[in-house]
């Protein structure tokens, strides 16, 4: 296990992701956060005292945090700490599991997505999601996979071919699949399938994209391609990514939240959290003493 400092040296010297140019515009948020305030003005989504259960087991025990607009927020923590459950609460996917329920508020642009009048179907078309295991629709072609969400939501696309190209381009997949658009989505490699899933989510122009350990089933090369992709999409779209890989969080995110046993232990700018963690447990975790 390399230490956080070594990690940052690595990143600064030769990593695929350069962060220096990003640091300046973020400083205002950083000040706000270190004073312990919520970044309401800049936040795309505010989570307030969120609790989630499977049956009688409380998985998330009262978490509040704010997701910054057009930034990448990473959620890290040891397995079983509730990080996947947490982001599944952000587009109301947690409740589709039998016996699961949620309490608390999640504000998307100031509107509580758990309000009774809100249809989860509408929330899910605004907040996209990419899953641990790539799950392209096997009975659809690559092209149909990309357009699936639009078709479902009844959006008429005037030039579907252009849109498919644009979205696949955005997902860094166009070059590899432009000649095989009519082949089944299941015929691609794991990494390509995951990028197809990202494209499928992007086609709906989501306001937020949730990624639940999107690289955990992929090899290192596919992983680095997805990371590059996250980095480029993160400039135009709000991303929340769950990862058990701290280096990955450090490489792709601007903010990081550390979860432990269903609680939010620390939430801060990524480079602060990894270099000067404010909490002993965070430090233990990022230096590899447990987890």
């Amino acid at each position, binding site marked *: 296990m390399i230490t956080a400092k070594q990690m940052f040296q690595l990143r600064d010297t030769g990593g695929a992701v350069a962060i220096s140019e990003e640091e300046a515009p973020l400083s205002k948020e950083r000040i706000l956060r270190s004073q312990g305030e919520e970044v309401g003005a800049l936040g795309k989504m505010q989570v307030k005292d969120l609790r989630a259960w499977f049956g009688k087991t409380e998985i998330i025990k009262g978490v509040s945090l704010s997701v910054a607009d057009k930034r990448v927020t990473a959620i890290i923590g040891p397995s079983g700490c509730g990080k996947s459950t947490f982001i599944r609460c952000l587009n109301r996917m947690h409740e589709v599991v039998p016996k699961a329920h949620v309490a608390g508020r999640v504000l998307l642009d100031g509107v509580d997505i758990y309000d009774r009048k809100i249809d989860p179907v509408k929330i899910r078309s605004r907040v996209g999601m990419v899953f641990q295991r790539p*799950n392209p629709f096997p009975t659809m072609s690559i092209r149909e996979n990309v357009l699936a969400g639009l078709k479902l939501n009844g959006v008429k696309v005037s030039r579907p071919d252009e849109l498919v190209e644009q979205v696949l381009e955005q997902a860094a997949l166009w070059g590899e699949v432009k000649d095989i658009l009519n082949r089944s989505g299941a015929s691609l490699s794991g990494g390509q399938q995951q990028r197809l899933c990202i494209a499928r989510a992007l086609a709906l122009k989501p306001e937020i994209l949730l990624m639940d350990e999107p690289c955990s089933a992929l090899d290192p090369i596919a992983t680095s391609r997805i990371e590059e992709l996250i980095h480029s999409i993160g400039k135009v779209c709000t991303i929340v990514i769950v990862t058990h890989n701290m280096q990955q969080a450090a490489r792709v995110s601007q903010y990081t939240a550390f979860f432990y046993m269903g609680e939010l232990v620390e939430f801060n700018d990524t480079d602060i959290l990894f270099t000067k963690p404010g909490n002993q447990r965070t430090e233990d975790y990022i230096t590899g003493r447990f987890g």
Partner: protein
Amino acid sequence: MHQTRINHSKEVPKLELGEHHGKGGRNFGDGVFKWMSAVFAASAVFLLAAMVIQMTRASALSIQRFGFGFLVERDWNPVQEIFGAFPFVFGTVVSSVIALLLVIPIALGVAIFLSELAPGWLTKPLSLLVELLAAIPSIVYGLWGMFVLAPWLLKTVYPILTQTLGFLPLFQGVPQGNGRGMLAAGIVLAIMILPTVASVSRDVMASVPKGYREGVLALGATRWETIRVAVLPNVVSGIVGAIVLGFGRALGETMAVTMLIGNRAEISASLFAPAATIASMIANDYSGASDELYLSVLAELGLVLFAVTLILNIASKLLVWRVGRIPGAERSL
């Protein structure tokens, strides 16, 4: 469950504890045991082969005399040795098709409900109920059909059908006084094959990985859209397999049909009219018929039924198996 089958004999240490096993005792015992159980296992193959042979032999006389052309001849008069079996083929197929038409929408609804929609506390008792429905003997369905279903059909359903759809020849004519006939048989068949079709369809739907559903849900799909996009396209062949299986069951179902179809070797456009099926004909006449040729004709009808159900069963098995091969299927079928 996947199990690695280990060839134990190679892994056992070659320690010979002479007292316990004697010379080569272990391998000898293993061999005997394996061969003995193999012989028992072979009985399944043997019995099936014997059935084919016996039924062919039993129908030899009839095959010689009539070949298979009598299946499409319409006149049936055993006393004068006129054997046209088309009325039975017709009755068998039509009653089973009625059953299928009735059962498909209901069984699929049940399967989708059980696999996708039912709240957790309801799934188990409902599935159990459906399975019990399958366990009730055919004779009991027949009894209930004779004394409850048929009178009710006669009093309530037939008049409504005549009034609303009476312009169709299907629903014309006067039903038998006891309500028995083609439609009654078709309905009881539908009730009987419903559990089979529903539970096989539910199983194939449940084998679709959760990830498929989540992928669609996360795009903002409604529950039904999720089923339509993520579940159904992956299990079409399995559902067809379930229906084919149900069809096979319906074709061969004997007791309840015999008790409800009216048993007359007639072909009528009206579904109210009595009819007969191959199975009901065999049930009624096989033991009574002392005439060798007649017995042989019935055996040949049985042989045809055997072949058809065999093909349907195999087809259904292959279709359901295909679903088990979708990437990441949750359990093998």
